[in-house]
């Protein structure tokens, strides 16, 4: 378990993290959400003991302030922008393997796991951004740590590399390990996280399960529903009567907003009145919507 109690970190007058508190239970995956400067990376650095802070952080029952080295030995960390010494890939992993006192065979094993075995003789500078990210992940996995902390792990990856990388993290999580990751992408949060911790101006403003995050922030799913022209007036009144927000018409379609997570509610409503539905599309709230929601809540 990782326990963060009333953690505050200031840089001069700026409070980068302001009285943040939350717990991450064993086997849980928690996403840190927030815009740039929300305090996610600073909080991660506090957990790693890289920054001084007031408050308390315990990793696996070890107080980071008292025993940073022991706490760090329980954590595998993937930085936002992995930077390596100008060494061969396998040598880099071997170096960190020695520091973490793991078996000699482990470096080759983790490189194979992340799909870098065939690149092990390449210098780090010769690897692509995605490969460097995977190398960093391989190093994080070296000692099979209880906790994995990933700072925007997919920010530099293309779509294919991102999907592949998320699968690796998911596998790790499914093996019962605990994961904290910061992200700007809601789809990643939905895919990986059991809980989402939304930060704004250094404060934790929401700590919820991802699907409840939308409700808490009053965000609905938007739907475009197309009906025949002759049913348009009837459909509009049926939807409004059912308490569904109708944002307006768009060609043959209605743009409606559904709150409460029941996306099928408008469709059921129309079908119960025998109004034919020609087609529909669903538009989930974006991270921008979430952050705007947090701004409204924060204000």
């Amino acid at each position: 378990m990782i326990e963060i109690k009333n953690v505050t970190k200031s840089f001069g007058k700026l409070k980068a993290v302001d009285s943040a508190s939350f717990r991450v239970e064993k086997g849980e995956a928690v996403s840190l959400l927030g815009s740039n400067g929300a305090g996610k990376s600073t909080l991660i650095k506090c957990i790693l003991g890289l920054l001084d802070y007031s408050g308390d952080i315990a990793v696996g029952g070890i107080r980071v302030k008292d025993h940073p080295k022991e706490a760090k030995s329980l954590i595998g960390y993937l930085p936002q922008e992995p930077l390596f010494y100008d060494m061969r890939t396998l040598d880099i992993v071997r170096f960190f393997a020695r520091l973490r006192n793991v078996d000699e065979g482990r470096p080759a094993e983790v490189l194979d796991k992340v799909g870098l075995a065939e690149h092990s003789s390449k210098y780090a500078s010769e690897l692509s951004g995605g490969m460097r990210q995977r190398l960093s992940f391989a190093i994080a996995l070296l000692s099979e740590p209880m906790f994995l902390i990933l700072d925007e792990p997919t920010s530099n990856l293309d779509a294919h590399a991102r999907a592949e990388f998320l699968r690796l993290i998911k596998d790790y999580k499914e093996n019962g390990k605990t994961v904290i990751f910061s992200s700007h992408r809601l789809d990643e949060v939905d895919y990986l996280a059991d809980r989402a911790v939304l930060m704004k101006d250094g404060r934790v403003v929401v700590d919820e399960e991802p699907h409840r995050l939308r409700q808490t922030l009053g965000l609905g799913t938007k739907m475009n529903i197309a009906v025949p022209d002759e049913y348009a007036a009837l459909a509009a009144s049926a939807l409004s009567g059912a308490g569904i927000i109708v944002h307006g018409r768009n060609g043959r379609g209605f743009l409606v907003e559904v709150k409460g997570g029941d996306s099928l509610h408008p469709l059921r409503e129309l079908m119960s009145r025998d109004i034919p539905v020609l087609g529909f599309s669903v538009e989930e709230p974006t991270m921008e919507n979430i952050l705007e929601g947090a701004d409204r809540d924060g204000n």
Partner: protein
Amino acid sequence: MEIRNILILAGKETRESLKNRWFVLYTVSFSVLAVLILSIAPGRNEITGISGYGRTAASLINLVLLFVPLIALITGSISISGERENGTLQYLLSHPVTKAEVFAGKFLGILVPICFSISLGFGLAGIGVALRGGSGDAAEFVLTALLSWLLAASLLSVGFVVSVFSRRASKAIGVAVFLWLLIIVLGDLGIMGTAVAMDLGIKQVFALALLNPAEVFKIASVLVLSPRFEILGPVGVYAVRTFGREGVIFILLSVMAVWTVIPFACAFLTFSIWRREES
């Protein structure tokens, strides 16, 4: 602090130094010049009374004074600043290592290759002397090499001080080169100028010389090599007559040790306390 971690970090640092083309160039230049000095410094010096190994070691002192402080100051100055600038220091510290282990590992890992290149230069010159008959005391030759190690350690410590105070490696190198000029090129002139300007006595001039690690190395090496301490001038005569030859050597070795320990401690405290969050 785990010795094992220090050795792992030192090993990595040493391997990186040995791959560094500037370091290789430095080692090759030092070794080639050491051999060249051997070839142009044959026989016995009638003034100093030094011959064979001693004569070669005496000739190498100037080479050491030129090369060793420069490489020690520069490599020391970029040790922390370089890693901080390219972001690898913070990543390293996110692993289960302490700042003390990183600091000690880096120091050891840089000092070892510098001592290796000094030993290579002295070794090649020593082999040359042996092939030519090898007169004189080989122990004095080895002692001079060991004094060169101490000089490297003391100026590496000074380089580390520069490194922890510098945000950028380029700035750190600039400061290191300036310090090298100050210590090596302007050192003697500074002592002479200060002595004349302030009308210092011989005792004060000796004390002033102890403030410069390169000067300390020079006096210690000459005392180790030459039976005639008069060649050090009035200051040397004063020091030997006051403290005895062994006493002066002991003072000089202690000063070099202090020049290693104090800057190292200052650099470490700065790195681990004052600027602990700038990694």
